[in-house]
């Protein structure tokens, strides 16, 4: 295995660990910012991507960018998934409370009716 293969597998393992143990919305934003910074560097200084690519044993800078993008989109997918799950849990709580409220209301109206 060469350097880039190990790096990609390590990124995958790191993500799984991150999402299960350390993730927060704030840290997600920091990681997004770091990816954006690397993106900006790759755009403004394309010669460096080729240099880094050769050093990593990838060959072409374009290939390195592709690998970087794959890692980024994997992160993006999991981050959005975590966010959706948080929203789903909130929606579940609202739906549950509403269901319980409506059930109670029915009981209340019944007891009101009998006391009159």
């Amino acid at each position, binding site marked *: 295995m060469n350097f880039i293969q190990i790096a990609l597998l390590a990124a995958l393992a790191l993500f799984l660990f991150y999402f299960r143990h350390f993730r927060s919305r704030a840290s997600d934003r920091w990681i997004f910012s770091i990816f954006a910074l690397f993106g900006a560097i790759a755009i403004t200084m394309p010669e460096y991507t080729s240099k880094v690519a050769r050093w990593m044993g990838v060959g072409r800078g374009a290939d390195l960018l592709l690998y970087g993008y794959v890692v980024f989109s994997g992160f993006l997918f*999991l981050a959005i998934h975590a966010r959706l799950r948080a929203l789903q849990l909130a929606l579940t709580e609202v739906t549950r409370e509403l269901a319980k409220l409506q059930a109670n209301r029915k009981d209340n109206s019944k007891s009101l009716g009998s006391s009159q």
Partner: protein
Amino acid sequence: MTFLSTTWIVVPSYNEARVIAETLSPLLEQGYQVVVVDDCSTDNSPKVLAEIPGLNVLRHAINLGQGAALQSGIEFALEQEAEYIVTFDADGQHSHLDIPKLLEPLIEDTADVVLGSRFLTHEPIKNLSSTKKLVLKLAILYTNIVSNIKLTDAHNGLRAFSRFAALRIKLRQNRMAHASEIISQIREERLRFTEVPVKIIYTKYSIQKGQRIWNSFNILWDVFVGGFKL
């Protein structure tokens, strides 16, 4: 039979209008407190349920899944001072005759959670296909390895909880992965549990309404994503 007034049967239901009245009538006849959680059914369940006297009905405004429906029903029962809570499937695959067997360890205070197992009985199970049996056995193997709890049937909807246990179980898996979630929470909360043999009646209707085998993959995915930090 003083425990009847504080024994709640939680029945999660989605589009079971055809059979729900038949499932509920023996439960209500026995004198249990019954709450049906209608998970936003699109059939005429609301009408059918409203016509059943003595029945508590919760209706989710949107469809959330069986795990969410169970949690809603359990919370409602706890708010009504339930001492024992039994979860019971709406499709008619469970028998009310098994409920006293589930309650016994709770009343004797030898367990906090009692799980029904279709594989503990010596009678052969009718209409259980060999593929479904294999998937269920693999699911148990997986759950046993992951949770380090030995069980013979992890995905049976017939369970009983003491008030103590029900207050500690908090289902966050809205869909079918709640079965594995219950097992992990039993371990995390160090609840005392036991399995009792129960009969599953596989009718044509329940098989048709029941879990498709490929849904096991969805369950694994939900378990994986469910572990994410929020």
